[in-house]
């Protein structure tokens, strides 16, 4: 493929152009945008970026490094979509613009050289997992500067699935297929296992083998590799079509992946063959906390006196619109103090591989959250997305590591009052 020249106007999909037409520049998105909050600059606001993309599409603004810089500082958290009274689907425009910029074969959008390799890596489970272990070892070795930020992203603790109570088989509850998602499976298998145990205990009828499912395409879509993302989506939907009953819930403990999967209908909207299956698939996607809350048995938890804050996955909040369930769950746990922070639903700055590409802004965004947690004397940060987990872990460590970062499922599993099923005691 030969890239189009730099001088041509930005090419956008029809869907993206349609979205541009719905922005009347009211500015309601500005206070929701993490990079606007940090910079106070219109260029780094959603309204600003939409204006830039529109001007570049109309040929009124050059497609150059300046535009690339402006667009690449966007984390892609989609908080602007939630704030928008006009329902502008900002991410459609951003993804289309990034796709065109990538097509031009410039290194504008992904400045970190290692990131593309990482994207390919996550699609291969075993290799990825080996790389994580290798990378942890490599952290102690002198490395080229370009790789250093990558190793810093690796999880601090070696995470091997611990032995837990075997999932109790349930035949009566809703059929649930737990999608283990690639980064979670490689880096946080324990959290995945905890999620499965809790879902099962709450009455889920677990179906399907959680192995080697490949990537959902979220990371790819994020950086403008839309075609690759579509291909990955087709693979996912095809597998589901073959193996699972239509009413099976697709549950993930990764807000970003869940939101991506719930977006397949739109992603494959122009694809005759896959449009309808993708829509069906998307409607079945549940985040772990939402699924847990909707299952027949409600589990009992008891806290240990911790001061707990939630860093909600931004795509869970703004893409999947299931951001309310984790906070509701946490508020109902006796013994711990759940502190709803003002920035709870605001992006932490991880943004897929954003923290590799824009480490300074990613750190700045996170610092605001951690400071808020510090003021509230938070000692447990809960996350529901692997990128957030890595990013927070790194940030907390940099601050001296007084707080713990935990996946929501692991936290709940630790506080689950086991072997005290309510239905049993009621019957007895």
């Amino acid at each position, binding site marked *: 493929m030969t890239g189009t020249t730099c*001088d041509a106007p930005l090419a956008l999909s029809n869907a993206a152009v349609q979205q541009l037409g719905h922005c009347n520049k009211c500015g309601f998105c500005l206070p929701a945008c993490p990079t606007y909050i940090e910079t106070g600059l219109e260029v780094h606001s959603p309204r600003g970026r939409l204006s830039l993309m529109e001007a570049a599409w109309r040929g009124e603004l*050059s497609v150059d490094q*300046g535009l690339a810089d402006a667009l690449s500082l966007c984390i892609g958290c989609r908080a602007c979509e939630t704030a928008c009274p006009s*329902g502008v689907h900002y991410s459609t425009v951003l993804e289309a613009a990034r796709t065109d910029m990538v097509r031009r074969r410039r290194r504008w959008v992904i400045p970190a050289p290692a990131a593309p390799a990482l994207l390919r890596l996550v699609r291969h489970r075993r290799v990825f997992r080996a790389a994580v272990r290798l990378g942890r070892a490599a952290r102690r070795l002198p490395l080229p500067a370009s790789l250093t930020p990558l190793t810093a992203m690796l999880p601090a603790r070696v995470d091997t699935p611990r032995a837990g109570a075997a999932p109790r088989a349930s035949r009566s509850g809703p059929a649930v297929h737990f999608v283990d998602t690639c980064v979670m499976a490689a880096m946080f298998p324990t959290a995945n296992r905890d999620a499965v145990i809790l879902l099962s205990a709450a009455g889920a009828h677990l179906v399907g083998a959680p192995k080697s499912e490949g990537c959902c395409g979220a990371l790819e879509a994020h950086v403008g590799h839309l075609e690759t993302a579509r291909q990955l989506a087709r693979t996912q939907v095809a597998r589901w079509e073959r193996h699972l009953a239509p009413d099976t819930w697709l549950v993930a403990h990764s807000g970003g992946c869940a939101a991506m999967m719930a977006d397949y209908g739109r992603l494959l909207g122009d694809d005759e063959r896959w449009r309808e299956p993708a829509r069906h698939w998307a409607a079945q996607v549940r985040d772990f906390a939402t699924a847990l809350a909707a299952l027949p048995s409600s589990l009992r938890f008891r806290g240990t006196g911790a001061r707990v804050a939630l860093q909600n996955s931004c795509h869970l909040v703004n893409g999947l619109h299931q951001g309310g369930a984790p906070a509701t769950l946490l508020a109902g746990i006796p013994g711990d103090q759940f502190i709803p922070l003002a920035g709870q639903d605001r992006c932490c700055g991880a943004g897929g591989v954003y923290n590799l590409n824009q480490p300074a802004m990613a750190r700045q965004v996170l610092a605001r959250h951690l400071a808020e947690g510090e003021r509230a004397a938070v000692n447990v940060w809960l996350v529901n997305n692997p990128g957030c987990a890595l990013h927070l872990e790194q940030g907390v460590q940099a601050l001296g590591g007084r707080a713990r970062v935990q996946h929501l499922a692991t936290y709940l599993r630790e506080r689950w009052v086991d072997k005290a099923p309510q239905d049993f005691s009621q019957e007895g």
Partner: protein
Amino acid sequence: MAEAPQRSGTPAPASSWHGQVTRPHLADMAAVPADVPPARWAQLGEQLTHILPRGQVLADGVSRLAYSYDATGERRPPHLVVVPTHADDVGPVLAAAARANVPVMARGAGTNLSGGTLPLFGGVVVALQRLTDPGHVDAEHLQADVGVGWVNAALQRELARNGLFYPPDPSSHRISTLGGNIQENSGGPHALRYGVTESHVLAVRGFLVDGTPVQLLRPALPGDWDLVGVVTGSEGTLMVATEATVNVRTAPAGTTTALLAFASVAAACEAVARVVAARLNPAALELLDRPSIELVERFAAAGYPTDAGAVLLVDLDGLPAERAAALAALDTVTRADARLTFQTADSPAAAERLWLGRRAAYGALAQVSARVFVQDVTVPRPQLAAMMDDVLAIAARWRLTVLTVAHAGDGNLHPTIAYDPSDPDEMTRLGGADREILAAAANRDGSITGEHGVGIDKLEHLPLMYGPSELGAMLGIKRAFDPDLRLNPGKAIWTGPGLAAVPERTRRCGPDQAWRDEACAVLQQAHQMGAVVQITGRAIRSAVDSGALPLSTRTWTGIQSIDPDNLTATVASGLSFRELDRLLFPHGLEWAVDPIDPEETVGGLVAGALPAWREAGPGPVRQQVLGVELVDGTARALRFGRPVLKNVAGYDLTKLLVGSFGRLGVLTTVTLRLIPRQPLLWRALATEPSALAGAAWASLQQPNRPEAVVARPGQLLTAWVADPGSTWGASVDDPRAVLASLLAERMHHGGRFHRSGRASGPPTARGWDLWWPLGGVWLGPGTGLERPAVPADPVAEQLARRVRDVFDPDHLWRGGLP
């Protein structure tokens, strides 16, 4: 996509950009040559980088585009953008721009709906969003010092922590800045009860266009021009404000939100009229018509009934008992066959959801079209229904779809039309309908803009409200602040050479024409004699100077109109307060100004604007005056203001005349804001001098604050409260327990303060300068809290002299106590 031209690497000139609206009249407005050589921009950019830290001067194409628009949709890129983080840096930036002789525009969040923050002629944009220092809330004195970059909603959150609030809440409050609110004189739903931004600005600090620092204070002393009142609402054309002191209020004890659905817009408007006439004084009273309801329901799901012709959204605030009574009254007065539903929000979350629908209206419109034309006309409140009919008829005639939301309680309508700028036929029809709607509002004695500002959208329509004399006076004020017309050129007021072509507005015949002739004759005589003219009303407080020609308003009496359903009256300036009060009595209304002597004239009270005892309640004199007619020192007959609560068409020069002490012109008629008559006020006395100030402030922090508090040695603390059964004082902490003793001595005083004579001792004509208001309490000598010395600001004084010269270049008015 076909519109994207084949192009080279450099962007096309902005004039050829998509969606620009041609505005031929703007060509005249640029006082600064448009063809600044590119080298000068580069040079200026270079100079600015020496003034500001790295990264705060932006000259790249991306940044220029990002600061080229506001919420109106057109784009005019500036040449340079500066994004300072310190107010101190703004002055040197302005000075550098002055040396380069280029246009300058300051902006906040860029949510303007009239094009006020488009850098029409390029130049330097000073983006002030990052000036959030200071951010000091003084809960005790009910004031806040804020950097202009404070977002309105952020200030509200900060204040809420102290049990306070800042009433102006434009729909953009989630992102619009205090600086923008001040420059636009923003209103919002809750301006209805508590007043627009202008009522809440106490001081403005910043820079003139040449970089000179200036501080403007709300006049503490009569005879100072109210320059703060003029800068507020000047759309960034007079000065760059970087910091302000604003009044805040104690949060209401509670708020009840109700949603009323009606079969038709007419039925809803009728209900509004009845709510106003019943003096329910809601905190907000909003109307949405059927197309608006359908639109917001699709996006905000606020729970509005989509089968209704119109809904009213009503906020009632106060103590629970007050709210319950008001709610019952609201139910009663709006009960009619055409009322479909009456529901109240049962929780704060439910109320928030109802409000979300109203606030989302503008954004939701973008689903119809990215470009919407929002109008902002205000009419006297009883004419709301007729104005709505006008709007619908005009839209039908021009084959346009219009939807309307309205701050109905203020008579402020926002008819909104979606349009496509690339459709010339539609643009022509839009232009025609726009003009007719504005003319209809002006003909109903309303305003062509209530809160959005003139910007560029209404500039060419200003002659619907003003003749060349008024427009000339506004231009004079502009030149007093900005002689070269470099600050936000092409906005708010007419600066082009076409002024002479504007027809003089036809004036009413009648006695006021004779009064103008009389004033002109005296002026002419003075001019010939080289003498000065002194205006007198009843000459109660000052005798005519022997060297001056007298001009008495004593015979200028009469009432032009009382509009009890609009709560306004227009009266002759020579009318005595006693006579006015007598005429208002049958209507159950009063003018909330307390004269020392009831024989004083209304004109004298306005020109004198002596300390208003009830500042804590209805507010100072300037808030009781909606408009003036006058003859100035150049014998021009001028009319500013209208009998409407919101009016931001051009500069608010009514404010200058309030407290002008007869040194700018002689008032012939005055339009007054009226309030429901307080049957009697209760007076409370404190006996402990040492606790005076504390008790006074504590009383003002009660939700049901007294209307007046005067601290005075000897007589001690005196407070006037409307309702002796109210709970004020009941929850005061121990150090403030003095208030309890104050309440214990509460006594029925037998009526209003001014009717009971001067026994309790207001600051009289002599010695008033020893008194000063602090957070609504008037403090006199001996209270231990003397007025802090405010150093005279020579720049402000110079401005005051220039402003005087606009109205009286030959210094023919002697001025003095009326």
